[in-house]
């Protein structure tokens, strides 16, 4: 489960196929005359980016951060606050969203990573709650009610993000970039340290790794990628509010990663798509969709311990022999 599967494993082929279909989605949406599909899937792509970043530290690094949605909020608020001051340049907004997320991750990670196990979960949650209430306290930016964004990030004449399809493809490209980045990271020396430290941190130190600084670096990289997803989310919703970083959101991100297959290259893609699709479909059937959704998740976790990705690989194994 921990080994980064080769790019030609069944689950990665399935992921490639899904990405191709996603690339064609705006065409389907046009054929079906339902532009709403583009909006729905844009949201999925953004969550998939956030889940991809969480997968780096949770799936490969064993760091169960229960506050990861915090960076969605931070990235989002950076965009929202800058926009409210008339700064719309994406070249400024997005790098700053990433940089501020990195700063938060650095400080919070430096403290949290001194703890392990349940303590780590609780303390990341505590910090995320702190940041959440900081958002609530931003009275001049709407406080609890949030902040409306009247202009999406501007990239001059290069990209017009107000065009839903352009924005969709930007999100898709960034998702592919994030997936590939994490895929490469976990196979590098840095990634080996992360994976080794998940597997046996004590031994890592005994053979000469000061693991703390590598884990912290991973934590910061994950925060940065997630911060970018927050900048996208702000543009998508044209609105930011503390609800973006509510702890339930952090929980959802964890579920997406586990559902898709922790520590697998394509897991976050499967997880985010499945989670949000099922949520969407169930919520159309009944307003009590969570009563069905919960048990469904438990079933997947019980019967496909490696997540959805492992289902593809199991099917392949069965076909072979």
């Amino acid at each position, binding site marked *: 489960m921990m080994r980064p599967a080769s790019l030609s494993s069944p689950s990665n082929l399935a992921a490639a196929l899904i990405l191709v279909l996603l690339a064609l989605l705006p065409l389907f949406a046009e054929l079906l005359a339902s532009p709403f599909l583009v909006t729905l899937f844009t949201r999925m792509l953004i969550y998939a980016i956030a889940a991809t970043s969480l997968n780096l530290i949770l799936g490969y690094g064993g760091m169960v951060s229960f506050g990861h949605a915090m960076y969605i909020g931070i990235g989002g608020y950076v965009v929202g606050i800058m926009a409210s001051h008339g700064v719309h340049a994406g070249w400024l907004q997005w790098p700053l969203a990433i940089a501020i997320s990195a700063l938060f991750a650095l400080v919070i990670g430096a403290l949290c990573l001194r703890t392990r196990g349940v303590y780590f979960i609780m303390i990341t949650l505590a910090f995320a709650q702190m940041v959440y209430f900081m958002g609530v306290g931003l009275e001049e930016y709407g406080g609890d009610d949030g902040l409306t964004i009247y202009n999406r990030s501007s990239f001059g004449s290069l990209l017009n993000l107000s065009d839903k399809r352009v924005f969709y493809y930007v999100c898709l490209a960034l998702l592919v970039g994030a997936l590939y980045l994490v895929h490469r990271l976990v196979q590098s020396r*840095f990634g080996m340290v992360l*994976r080794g430290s998940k597997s046996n941190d004590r031994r890592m130190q005994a053979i000469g790794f000061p693991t703390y600084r590598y884990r912290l670096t991973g934590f910061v990289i994950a925060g940065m990628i997630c911060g970018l997803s927050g900048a996208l989310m702000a543009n998508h919703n044209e609105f930011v509010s503390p609800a973006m970083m509510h702890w339930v959101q952090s929980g959802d991100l964890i579920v997406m990663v586990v559902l898709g297959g922790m520590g697998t290259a394509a897991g976050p893609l499967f997880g985010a798509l499945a989670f949000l699709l099922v949520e969407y479909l169930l919520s159309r059937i009944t307003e009590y969709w969570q009563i069905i959704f919960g048990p469904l998740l438990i079933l997947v976790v019980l019967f496909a311990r490696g997540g959805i990705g492992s289902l593809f690989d199991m099917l392949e194994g069965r076909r072979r022999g």
Partner: protein
Amino acid sequence: MADPLLRIEGLVKRFGGIVATDQVSLDIAPGELHAIIGPNGAGKTTLIGQLTGEIRPDSGRIRFQGTDITRRPTHRRSLQGLARSFQITSIFLDLTVAENVVLAVQAHAGHSFRFWRRVASDRRLQEPARAALRQVGLDARADARAANLSHGERRQLEIAMALATEPTMLLLDEPMAGMGPEESARMVETLRALKGRLTILLVEHDMDAVFALADRITVLVYGRAIATGDPDTIRANPEVRRAYLGDQGTEAADG
């Protein structure tokens, strides 16, 4: 002894009321294979823990290559050339055998803030790793998941990982624990091949192995080093026979 590689001076470690290490002083020469024997609970693992830096001594000093390392953190001691294998096998079960050893090589190949290049195609890591696996006879299992190794193979992997860091000194805590006779014999051969090429501190219960391999032996009882000497001296020492070796020692001495 002119210049010991490792010098332990008046080491003391207490756990509550128990004195696990009681004024232990010991010199180990470069290239020596020094064995430590003693009954369960004698403080052997605790002593190794203090040498690696995982356990802080209450008093006393540890010098390695002439420098005081008593307060040095574990990873720095490892980088300095002090490698250990654990009594309880402590490998990376989720990784492959090769990846386990690669990590050990990587630990000593500069910092790991390298984010892009694949480890799998990095010959500076792969080649020393393969060499270490060959030394312990595990090269055929390189691509197996470590979790799928037999007990004996895991212990061999432990040694390979320690070797991969190209240590000056190897600290082995009961490398043959729980092994069948065949696996033990293989481990003895592995250690014999290593002997003389690097300094080894061997904690081991298997008396045949200890007396066959060791240059010198220290006997630890209730945290105290009651005797140190070459195998013949230790066999003959009456206090050692009474305190520890008992019948088994007589057999070893006579047979």
